[in-house]
């Protein structure tokens, strides 16, 4: 155990030294290309990971990653203050129009990884599986008691995400069929917070990235009453048999999609870039969508 932590700190030190060297080298030569990445908070950790690894391999490039939200990212893309925009949802028509007004073209869309959404309940909740329709009724507030879906006779407490999150919008569109969440749904600042709240509340139910795990039980989801219940895991999400999943995107101004930025985007979508996706909590793109 001790040697393990030692190794870990050693690795940390090494990476810090390496990062300093990279920065020092780029300052000295002054010829390093800088790529700025801005946008979705969902993707920010993943993007930082990619940037870190890419910079370690390629000391000619400097990548600055910031979050702030998908909307902020698109605004920066329009103002041309960022090169790449991370997005946890598809770009809206109004935002495309703004981009065309700003630089005359539609931004190019790249799918960069997959995200499966799990539905969590407390570990001692007897309910093991739900259909998509039951989920919709629960989260829109029509089903109010666990008894109606085969659980104990207790009121359901809903935990949701802030409406600024891409996860919220995705769940709303794909599971609630566009209907409103019940007003009584408590909104949490992140998937980890939802998970923690559900773990503490035996009548709670919440949703979030499938790779977040410990503490609560992931429900198996049935598409319809008769279809089989599918557990969320890498195999079912990447194959598409698990019903609640989405793509995460990077958008770029087509005029900037060349040189170092294009090379970086290709690397993200290659096998090497996709290898690190699971560590952060997402799922890699299926093989046919990757760059060779």
């Amino acid at each position: 155990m001790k040697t393990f932590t030692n190794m870990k700190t050693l690795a940390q030190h090494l990476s810090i030294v390496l990062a300093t060297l990279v920065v020092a080298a780029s300052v000295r030569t002054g010829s390093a290309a800088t790529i700025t990445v801005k946008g979705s908070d969902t993707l920010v950790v993943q993007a930082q990971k990619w940037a870190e690894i890419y910079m370690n391999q390629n000391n000619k490039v400097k990548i600055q990653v910031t979050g702030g939200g998908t909307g902020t990212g698109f605004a920066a893309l329009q103002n041309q203050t960022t090169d790449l925009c991370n997005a946890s949802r598809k770009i809206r028509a109004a935002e495309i129009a703004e981009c065309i007004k700003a630089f005359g073209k539609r931004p190019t869309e790249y799918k960069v990884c997959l995200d499966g959404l799990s539905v969590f309940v407390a570990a001692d909740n007897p309910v093991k599986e739900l259909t998509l329709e039951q989920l919709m009724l629960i989260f829109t507030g029509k089903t109010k008691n666990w008894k109606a879906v085969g659980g104990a006779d207790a009121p359901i407490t809903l935990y949701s995400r802030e409406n600024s999150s891409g996860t919220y919008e995705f769940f709303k569109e794909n599971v609630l069929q566009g209907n409103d969440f019940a007003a009584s749904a408590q909104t949490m600042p992140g998937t980890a917070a939802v998970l923690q709240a559900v773990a503490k509340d035996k009548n709670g139910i919440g949703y979030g990235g499938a790779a977040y795990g410990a503490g609560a039980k992931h429900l198996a989801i049935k598409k319809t009453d008769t279809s089989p219940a599918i557990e969320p895991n890498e195999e079912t999400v990447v194959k598409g048999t698990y019903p609640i999943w989405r793509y995460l995107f990077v958008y770029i101004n087509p005029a900037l999609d060349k040189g170092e930025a294009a090379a970086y985007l290709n690397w993200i979508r290659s096998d090497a870039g996709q290898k690190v996706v699971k560590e952060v909590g997402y799922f890699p793109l299926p093989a046919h969508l990757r760059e060779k």
Partner: protein
Amino acid sequence: MPHLRTNTNRSHGWMGLQRGHKARPVEWLAEKLIFLVSLSAIVMIFLIFLFVAREALPVALGRMNSSLVGKTIPVEEMEKHSPAELMEYLGLTAKQFQGMDKETLKDLMLVKLEAAAEAPTDKDAALNTTSWRYLLGAQQWSGYDKPELIWQPVSKIHKYNLMPLFIGSLKATLVALLFSVPLALGAAIYVSQLAPPRYKEWLKPAIELLAGIPSVVLGFFALIVMASFFQGVFGYQSRLNAFVAGIALGLAIIPGVFSIAEDALTSVPRAYTQGALALGSSKWQAAWKIVLPAALPGVFAAVVLGFGRAIGETMVVLMASGNASIVSWNLFDSTRTMTATIAAELAETVFGGHHYRILFLVGSLLFIVAFLSNMVADMVIHRLKSRLEGKA
């Protein structure tokens, strides 16, 4: 004597030279700099308000239209319309329009059509939900059984009703005041009137030290410790609610309320107390019946300032209130305040869009409420001071 006349007619003049003093350019410069800095603070506040109000103005004046159903022009018919019509249709300025070639314009028209195709076929789609009627009044939306006040800004039909947020803010603030005012006032009376001087010496700074706790730490404490504790005591269903957030907010405003109330009580002349004591009242009677009524306007000001601080506080409510936009006066329901809504939602809105502007509208309302409450408190304190000094 002529030099006396210049003396009565004193002017500050260039670096104080005319006053007959030795020139002190550094002091003169420092004085002017400080004046400039304080002036810039006022200008800054004014500019910030101007910015916030400017962003909110289109909604406040009813100039926004969130209706999702509109006339569309097919791309092929582009030639039939005059440039002015096209500019209006696409929302372009003349300069942008000049700079665009035909291909870009066509693309823009296409996007407009795509947006129209995405629009829901709901019966509410044609409503302009940003008008004041929907911002304040109840509406029976499709899919709901009865007219309701709903804040669902990210939705097929954007529902921007502000009432759930007002009620949420008021609920949390009310709990905060009910909790903190008796405590802060009691502490102020004790410290200023009853406590022996050596207690007073460390009690006052100790209470004021509470102000040094960052609100995010307070929020974290409320989220993890207080929420579970109160749920254990009262046994309500939702762990995070207006009550927990209100108590945490109360902790945040106690030092402010205490400090101002204590100042007001201390500024009552000693002669009042001494007179009462000489006439045979107890220390407590003198404090409660003589000093407190005399300082009442100052105490009122303290409460109003506490209100301003509580309604504007963000981090505590964001973390501890549960943030569900329910319309209910039950203190044990989760609640969503105006400040938390702005903090949580602004980052993902489309810049310049309806949601963005409505959040700025909420911001300017908060600004106005906080400004008014501070102004009222300030005026009341000023009046109290001059009354106690016998000027009014």
